[in-house]
């Protein structure tokens, strides 16, 4: 028993001293489990996140936008891979993590269960959804688990254009024809609240947070990150002449932050529980892609075997 206690203490001392934990280091079982769950959920979010945007690749308004959107979606696929690889270093196989997504057992970010109805939604997704994700990802560059932190550094480098291209789309629409401006405002109206929900429940209702903070998996609370996001985004909306759909939004001179209206956590819980507008569609699309790719994966293996035989014969 003292042995375990010593390992615990050594582990916490390392974390407190800002030393990264590496795959072969001793770690509490719960730390490992929490990370596997969090990193694989994060990976699933990158992968499922390709679906709402993929919806518009063939319908992008011009070649420039199409090339940008393709590049962005391709980045998200890469992010999924970096994260699946990081999860794998914790001893869970790729097959297990993917199966958990396909069977519906694993969660992914609920934001991707909302539909992208117009081209302005692609702007709103880049600006708000990637913007909110970046807040979280910048924090995770300093997370205590080495492979996760390294994956995040790589991801953050690639993310920086995602938010900017979305904001650019919104800016062009907001300063276009009245119809275009209306389309941009409508997209902002639909994506604003779900984007705020991306930071997770408020601190008072976030049961796992304390432990994650102690282990330095998380370094800032949900509410802290959400507040920074609101402060920044309200200013950006003003610059392009769009209105944040929150009548209670108010600058507080004392705190130097915006106050905001109540977030509809009932809606959040409902989407998490599987009843969002696109939950079933997203999971069906992932399963279809996986099933229809089975022959490709088999063929690649057969081809590799053939190539190896030829090489041997030569």
């Amino acid at each position: 028993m003292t042995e375990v206690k010593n390992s615990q203490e050594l582990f916490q001392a390392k974390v407190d001293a800002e030393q990264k934990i590496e795959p072969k280091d001793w770690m509490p079982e719960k730390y490992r489990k929490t990370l596997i769950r969090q990193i694989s959920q994060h990976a699933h979010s990158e992968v499922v996140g390709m679906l709402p945007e993929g919806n518009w690749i063939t319908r992008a308004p011009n070649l420039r936008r199409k090339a940008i959107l393709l590049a962005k979606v391709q980045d998200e696929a890469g992010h999924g891979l970096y994260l699946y690889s990081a999860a794998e270093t914790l001893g869970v196989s790729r097959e297990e993590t993917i199966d958990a997504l396909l069977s519906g057992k694993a969660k992914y970010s609920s934001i991707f269960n909302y539909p992208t109805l117009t081209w302005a939604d692609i702007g709103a997704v880049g600006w708000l959804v990637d913007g909110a994700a970046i807040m979280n990802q910048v924090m995770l560059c300093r997370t205590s688990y080495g492979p996760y932190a390294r994956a995040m550094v790589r991801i953050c480098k690639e993310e920086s254009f995602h938010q900017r291209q979305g904001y650019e789309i919104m800016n062009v629409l907001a300063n276009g024809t009245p119809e275009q401006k209306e389309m941009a405002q409508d997209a902002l109206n639909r994506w604003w609240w779900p984007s705020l929900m991306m930071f997770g429940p408020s601190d008072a209702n976030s049961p796992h947070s304390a432990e994650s903070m102690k282990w330095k998996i998380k370094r800032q609370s949900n509410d802290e990150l959400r507040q920074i996001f609101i402060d920044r985004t309200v200013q950006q909306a003003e610059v392009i002449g769009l209105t944040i759909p929150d009548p209670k939004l108010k600058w507080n001179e004392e705190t130097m932050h915006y106050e905001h209206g109540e977030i509809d956590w009932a809606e959040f819980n409902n989407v998490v529980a599987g009843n969002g507008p696109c939950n079933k569609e997203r999971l069906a699309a992932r399963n279809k892609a996986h099933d229809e790719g089975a022959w490709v994966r088999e063929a690649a293996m057969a081809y590799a075997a053939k190539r190896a035989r030829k090489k041997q014969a030569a």
Partner: protein
Amino acid sequence: MNNTNEQGWPLWEIFIQSKRGLDHKHVGSLHAADAQMAIENARDVYTRRQEGQSIWVVPAAAISASQPDDAAMLFDPADDKTYRHPTFYVMPEGAKFI
């Protein structure tokens, strides 16, 4: 750890040389049917922004690593040998190019 995925694709560790003259540096890992496919996938995943000009792929199973528990045994002996560093030595005032 399971080093192959569902289709038996092994895990490869990827090393990228960002510029001629620099070391190949570990960047991550991926599953691929064979070395050639690992190189092609690594190109797509790790060099989309001119991050590299050469790729090494190594089967993860072929890498042997030291254990964290052996760190003291392996690395502590270097701690008290500061005379291996040039700053250890006292040079006379005025001596140049040394």
